[in-house]
């Protein structure tokens, strides 16, 4: 018994099983609606039955798409063929938009039929579809209500399950088809309201304003599906809010100085993020940062609507802000001290500075006082240091006080780790 229950649960969660159930539901609906619709002379019910036949073809197409999307990736398709799902979103979104326009026109023509003179005036300008009034008697009422009510319940239940399994398994086409099934359910509900309105209140017009409302809701769903597919197929970013959170999480990671580029897009239900991280750390530390970034981003993306994520992290150093400074030094027996005055100095040390650190220095013999300015300019020195509270000026070069006369404290003679 337990094994049977487990098997049923597995079956209920299988996208293929659910889609075959959808095919079955539409087949039953189509047979009943076409049969009853023709017997009570209701083109609306019979037409809905024919529409359900088209739904069967759509569900079979979704089955094919799910099968294709599950194909493994290859050299030619490194991300697999998951994006095929979004062609279905595009198609179903378009179908829903057409369906909503058709339903809105039918509801509008039903409303116009209540005022024949206005109806005739409008029809003389706009070619509206022919309005078919419901033909029903006491003997057929219960069958019609049972059919409409059963269809509504079946549509909503199946749609809900379809969307849940579609989201859980990451099949956008199944979610889109679930939305389409829900749209059908809403139209069926309006039909039911029309039937009940006619029978109990002799007010079949009730269904028409509600029909317009439902047409609007379906059009909204259709537009969202269409745009969702459109964005993914054209590799639109995964969204401003997601990117803002990705940026926030990255900047919260120790070692990250900035993010110079954030590019995201979606393939199937996989989020792809290409980030350029700015950091001053070395390679062995970057390996740890990469682990931390991948952990936090994966945690976020999987908790959002994505089933998987691909992270491409590139690390780069910040702008080095390269410039040159110079120190006047006394070098006696290989012992360096920053000089107080130019006269006191024996050498000039020219330093290349990157990221505010001296990365290379070269000791030059001190030129004569007259040649010092030209020498420093030729070496492209932007600041010349002496250890003196009021250092003597050098023409054309900024002169500053070194905070210490000890060479290692000002960055000369660096002690390596």
């Amino acid at each position: 018994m337990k094994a049977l229950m487990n098997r049923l649960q597995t079956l209920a969660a299988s996208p293929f099983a659910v889609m075959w159930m959808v095919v079955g539901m539409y087949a039953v609906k189509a047979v009943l609606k076409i049969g009853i619709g023709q017997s009570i002379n209701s083109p609306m019910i019979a037409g809905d039955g024919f529409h359900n036949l088209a739904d069967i073809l759509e569900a079979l197409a979704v089955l094919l798409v799910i099968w294709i999307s599950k194909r493994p990736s290859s050299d030619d398709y490194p991300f697999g063929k998951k994006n095929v799902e979004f062609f279905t979103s595009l198609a179903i979104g378009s179908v829903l938009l057409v369906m909503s326009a058709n339903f809105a026109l039918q509801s509008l023509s039903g409303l116009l039929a209540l005022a024949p003179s206005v109806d005739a005036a409008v029809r003389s300008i706009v070619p509206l579809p022919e309005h078919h009034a419901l033909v029903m008697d006491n003997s057929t009422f219960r069958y019609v209500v049972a059919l409409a009510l059963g269809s509504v319940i079946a549509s909503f239940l199946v749609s809900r399950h379809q969307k849940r399994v579609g989201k859980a398994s990451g099949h956008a086409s199944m979610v889109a088809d679930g939305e389409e099934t829900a749209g059908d359910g809403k139209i069926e509900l309006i039909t039911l309201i029309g039937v009940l309105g006619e029978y109990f209140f002799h007010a079949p017009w009730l269904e028409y304003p509600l029909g317009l409302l439902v047409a609007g809701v379906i059009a909204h769903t259709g537009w969202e599906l269409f745009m969702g597919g459109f964005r993914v197929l054209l590799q639109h970013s995964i969204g401003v809010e997601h990117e803002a959170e990705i940026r926030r999480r990255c900047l919260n990671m120790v070692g990250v100085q900035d993010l110079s580029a954030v590019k995201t897009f979606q393939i199937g239900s996989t989020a792809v993020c290409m980030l350029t991280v700015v950091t001053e750390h070395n390679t062995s530390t970057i390996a740890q940062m990469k682990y931390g970034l991948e952990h936090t981003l994966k945690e976020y993306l999987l908790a959002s609507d994505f089933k998987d994520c691909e992270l491409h992290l590139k690390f780069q150093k910040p702008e080095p802000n390269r410039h040159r400074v110079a120190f006047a030094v006394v070098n006696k027996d290989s012992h360096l001290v920053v000089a107080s005055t130019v006269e006191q100095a024996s050498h000039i040390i020219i330093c290349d500075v990157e990221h505010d650190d001296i990365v290379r220095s070269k000791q030059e013999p001190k030129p004569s006082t007259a040649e010092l300015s030209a020498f420093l300019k030729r070496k492209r020195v932007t600041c010349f240091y002496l250890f003196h509270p009021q250092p003597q000026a050098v023409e054309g070069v900024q002169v500053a006080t070194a905070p210490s006369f000890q060479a290692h404290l000002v960055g000369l003679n660096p002690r390596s780790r």
Partner: protein
Amino acid sequence: MEKITCVFRRSTEGRLALLFASDLLKMLSATPLYVYLEAGRSDAEQIAGADQNNSVEALLTEQNAQVLAEVAAITGLPPEQIVLSGTDTSGIVVDHNMAFERAELDVLSPSREKALLARGKGPLLVPFGDSLSALQAANIAIELAARLTLPVVFYHTTWKDETLASPSAEDHMCAEAKQVAEALRNSATAAGVEFSFVIETADDVAEGILQCALRQSVRLIIMPRSAKTTIGCYVNQALAKTPVPLLAVAAKSGRQP
């Protein structure tokens, strides 16, 4: 955290260490900031002249004034809250280089971070093994966590006991490590600090510690040095590649658990 000392170095890492240390002091409402500055008397003698204005003493005084002004400008602390010191052997030293060079001191390497909580609040991590040295590190962590209202994560990685089939890493811990864990639990509970344990069987101890720190958004790792380790010190391994600030607690600091 009775005394925080920084080493004056005119470099990016030196500036970041000063910022980190002064921020820590501000958070702890503690003053002053001690700045270690070698006097450099022999250097001063090289450039001292015969005149009074350029004497060794005048040069040393001028150096102190310049360093004080620069430290005040970097940290934003008023000069009266900065003390230049010629000794570095007590309290916690905040410096990037000394963490590698002076195993006998408690040295906090800021790992190029500007402040402890610059990226938001997060826990402190105390790795422990089968030695009681972890209790010294835990004491510092618990005191800091209590003052800054931060949680503490105690981390342990163990080798798998091949005789056990249990998938739980905790079951593979040796008896001594379990005793240390119990002592840590008691200390944290007594201090009223929020804490948790992460026990795992990581492939590499230093990487296991760092990866746990990154997963948990840890703001400071507090690691005890072992007096017995001769080769393969985990503290040095972690220091070499950590992006998370790390306080290396000396093996013989005199701090009793």
